[in-house]
């Protein structure tokens, strides 16, 4: 059993650290008057959990899953799939004594503009039957017409206090002991991502019921691909082709996106054995390429350009 599911909040009260958002949504659900919602914010702060709670509360006593369609935009290959599935679902009336169906579209910022425009029509046309909950990491990647049709909620990264509460709740329940220093370490390594924290915690619990700071760093470093560093070292030595080959493998093996890689490169530059001038140049290049990656379209090509610059 994965703790991320076991301890996923089941009620509004369970959701930590987003009090103001929860309060407003709760009022909407109580009136059974929920507009389209747009949740934005970093990973692991409760967007999906809140959407699921909304469905549970709205459809209390009914089979709540019947009236909920959950889709993940980054997994659905073509826009057509999304269009058809969503349309088919939205076209028919909700089952049971409930006002409307709910469509939860996760990671909707990975939809193309085209797809978003298609979505916007569907949102309009089927408002009577279905309401949308969209979630995304970056609200800026969602087109204006969708913004204007939604109530927008910006989720904040969780505070240390919230994380402490959550961790101590789990540890009490599971009969494990988490040292204070370990909680600090969890907070440090997770960037406020509760989902990751729970995964790390459960991994540690397998190793030892007494969770120490060391155990946490051990698990975290095991889960982080070390190969990115090797790729960089290879590039600095001037071996472009093998650095590139290696990078391709790492990205596929660990399912990393270009942005994941560049974030890690940026963190590694400080540790590399290069002179100061080179280091400055590398940092500048890293920023420039991250910018082009967001503006451009082929993440792997941009990373190659970065490696080529490091080879210099």
């Amino acid at each position, binding site marked *: 059993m994965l703790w991320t599911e076991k301890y996923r909040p089941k009620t509004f009260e369970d959701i930590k650290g987003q009090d103001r958002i929860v309060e407003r949504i709760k009022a909407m659900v109580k009136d059974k008057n929920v507009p389209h919602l747009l949740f934005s914010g970093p990973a692991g702060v409760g967007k999906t959990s809140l959407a699921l709670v909304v469905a549970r509360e709205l459809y209390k006593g009914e089979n709540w899953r019947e009236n909920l369609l959950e889709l*993940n935009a980054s997994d659905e290959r073509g826009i057509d799939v999304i269009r058809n599935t969503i349309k088919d679902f939205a076209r028919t009336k909700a089952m049971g004594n409930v006002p409307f169906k709910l469509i939860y579209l996760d990671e909707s910022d990975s939809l193309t503009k085209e797809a978003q425009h298609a979505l916007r029509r569907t949102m309009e046309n089927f408002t009577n039957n279905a309401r949308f909950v969209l979630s995304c990491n970056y609200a800026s990647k969602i087109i204006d017409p969708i913004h204007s049709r939604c109530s927008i909620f910006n989720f904040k990264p969780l505070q240390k206090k919230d994380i402490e509460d959550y961790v101590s709740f789990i540890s009490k329940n599971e009969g494990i002991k988490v040292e204070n220093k370990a909680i600090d370490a969890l907070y440090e390594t997770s960037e406020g991502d509760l*989902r990751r924290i729970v995964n790390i915690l459960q991994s540690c619990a397998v*190793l030892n019921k007494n969770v120490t700071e060391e155990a946490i760093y051990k698990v975290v470093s*095991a889960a982080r691909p070390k190969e990115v560093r090797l790729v960089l070292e290879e590039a600095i030595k001037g071996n*472009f082709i093998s650095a590139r080959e290696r990078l391709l493998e790492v990205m596929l093996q660990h399912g990393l996106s270009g942005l994941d890689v560049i974030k890690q490169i940026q963190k590694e530059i400080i540790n590399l054995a290069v002179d100061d001038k080179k280091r400055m140049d590398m940092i500048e290049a890293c920023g420039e390429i991250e910018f082009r990656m967001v503006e451009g379209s082929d993440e792997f090509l941009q990373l190659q350009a970065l490696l080529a610059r490091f080879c210099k």
Partner: protein
Amino acid sequence: MLWTEKYRPSAVKQIRGQDVERICSFVLNYNREKHKAILIHGPTGTGKTLIANVLAKELGYELREINSSDNRGKEEIVSVLGNTLNQGSLFGNKKLILIDDVDAFSSGDRGGLKAVSELIKESRFPILMTANDVDLEKMSCLKNVVEYFEFKPIPLLDIFEFLKEICHKEKIKYNENDLRSLSRLAGGDLRAAIIDLQTLTENDKELKTSEVNNLDVRYHQEEIYNLLVKIFKTKELKLIQEDIDRLNIPLIDMTKPSISSVVFGNENCLSYYLEENIPREYDNINEAFDLMSRADVFRGRIIRNQHWRYLVYVRDLYSCISLVKDNRNIANVKYHSTKRSPKNNFKLWSLVNRRRWGVADKVATHSHISAWRALTEIPYYSIISRGFDFGEIGLEEEEIEWLRKKVII
């Protein structure tokens, strides 16, 4: 199901278009052989890995395989191979050792090849190795310890016959001319031919002439290589631009990523040929890649805003790659097509087809996240699976077993 799997030969006599007798006799008369290993080299899709698998099965040998999805540094090689070579006789069963893609030992596999070349000498079991390319510097340590054996491209007629058989079994409508062109386009790569056949006929069980004609990109390869020579060896900007305009393949790939953010759908685009070959041709790759990177920003703008006029800047930036070379590289360089396409890089298939994806998919559904996110969390699941029950997530026994066995800590 992939036809390359479905129609994989299961016995030596079913292997077509390749002379495998020497390999068989080597394995059978192993004790009398001078060299302890054979390095089978040749282009992709000619049956190199296949022969090892089939032989092992047919002779009832246990196949011990080390491929490019494993870590292959010195330590790993010694721990896997070293043990195998010594322990084997204890249990009495015979083994066949396969070291796949020896030309793909990466820089991370430090000392791996060296270790292989030393272990070979003591081996009590036949070793088969495969490689596309044997002229690489790093492989020189194998020179005196292995026998080289070349696998030739599969003859056109054999490919044709094989495809024909598949068509009959799958009840696919075709005419012989189209099937012959399809076989020719594969250029001796039987696997590519089968994949093409499956892709083209998957929807309506019919091989259409128009579809085959669309596929003749491989046919255009000469044209592309001529253009690459112009860009890499001259500075004739105007001529290069004209040539690019006349090119029969797209400048940039306008498909979406099909696997991860790395592999896109249309492998035959000028951009991929450039990116693959710049480092083979230029010393100052930085400036050339900077141009590629700027061109990609325009590609992003084209995709987002559908403003196709930007394509001229992509063309012009690509042409400018000809201007940034310091000195003309007079060596005759062999050009490659992109390694980012699974068709050209078998290693990719093994990375993407693995169990990992099945596991990520199931966990993703169970825990309301995308398969991509689940993929990055697999190391955690691997540890967790050793202490907790994973049954309710819907994983199969063997998937759980796979998770548990993954070495993380």
